[in-house]
């Protein structure tokens, strides 16, 4: 099993004890977890610990997870909570100068709503990319390579004419906009706008 399988299937197989399915879940959500951890400005070692706690908690949570679609939200919430708990616990262990009001700010240093939306968008983009047929995904990744790869080399690597790279890129992006992950993101965004009104 790889990351292209639907989340439902990956969660079901992981429940059966399939390490490969678990690894695929990790691959899909680890960038989101790491990005969330980074925004809480923990030390690298504490970041590693929080990260591992999140996955250990997910292992124990797998069987009670009613709806695999709730997984992204669960992972995001659990990661933020674990970061805030450890930040607060670390503050207890270091001497605090009561006159230094600045030292209290870190306790509630959660990520902002705007940052959270951006993180969820980037997660959806990666999920959408994983849904694309392998050839189109590879083309987009080659076009994104840093340092850039020339069209001539991309043409050679993928065995497609240079002239078709541009049109294929356009088709791949259109397909990306219509992936399940990207449509879910768009409808979630419309819903939250509706709530704000």
């Amino acid at each position, binding site marked *: 099993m790889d990351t292209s399988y639907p989340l439902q299937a990956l969660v079901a197989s*992981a429940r059966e004890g399939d390490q490969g399915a678990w690894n695929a879940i990790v*691959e899909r959500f680890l960038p989101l977890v790491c990005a969330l951890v980074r925004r809480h400005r923990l030390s690298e070692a504490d970041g*590693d610990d929080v990260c591992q*706690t999140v996955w*250990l908690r997910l292992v124990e949570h*797998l069987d009670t997870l009613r709806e695999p679609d709730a997984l992204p939200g669960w992972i995001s919430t659990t990661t933020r909570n674990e970061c805030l708990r450890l930040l607060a616990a670390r503050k*207890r262990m270091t001497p605090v100068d009561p006159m230094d009001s600045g030292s209290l700010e*870190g306790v509630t240093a959660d990520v902002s709503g705007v940052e959270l939306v951006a993180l969820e968008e980037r997660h959806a*983009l990666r999920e959408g990319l994983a849904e694309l047929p392998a050839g189109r995904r590879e083309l987009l990744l080659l076009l994104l390579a840093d340092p850039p790869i020339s069209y001539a080399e991309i043409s050679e690597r993928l065995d497609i004419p240079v002239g078709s790279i541009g049109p294929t890129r356009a088709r791949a992006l259109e397909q990306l*906009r219509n992936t399940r992950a990207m449509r879910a993101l768009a409808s979630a965004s419309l819903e939250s706008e509706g709530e704000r009104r």
Partner: protein
Amino acid sequence: MNDWSDDDALMAALSEAVGEADEVTDRRREAAQAAFTWRSVDAELMELLHDSALEAGAAVRGAADPGRLLSFGRGELTIELEVGAGAVTGQVLPAQDATVTLQATGVEDRTVAADGAGFFRIEEVGSGPVRFVVTTSETNLTTAWVTL
């Protein structure tokens, strides 16, 4: 929501998203994969009831600060923990004979006996994810993982 109807804007967003995935370290990936070996289908979980780290004003404290206090429970049984410098002391309630096992990743389990009043102490506890298994004459319960 960003306007991704423009191809170049969408490519730029995609670049950021892919770049974020490239920042994942192998160390974190391996640890996350290894977490699966801790899967135990029949473990009965004690949920977190309290963590003093989350209390308002946790950063303001007096000289007699007791350290971080945690409690977990399931049904009648609770375990209360005080995380001090390098050691964890605690109590199993209701008070009874019990053993408490500290589980952490990458190290052997360590088991201590609680005295008749339920008190126990575990020395040399480092930082990182841990959980506790409480075994009484009647039951065997495992706490949720917590980062020390």
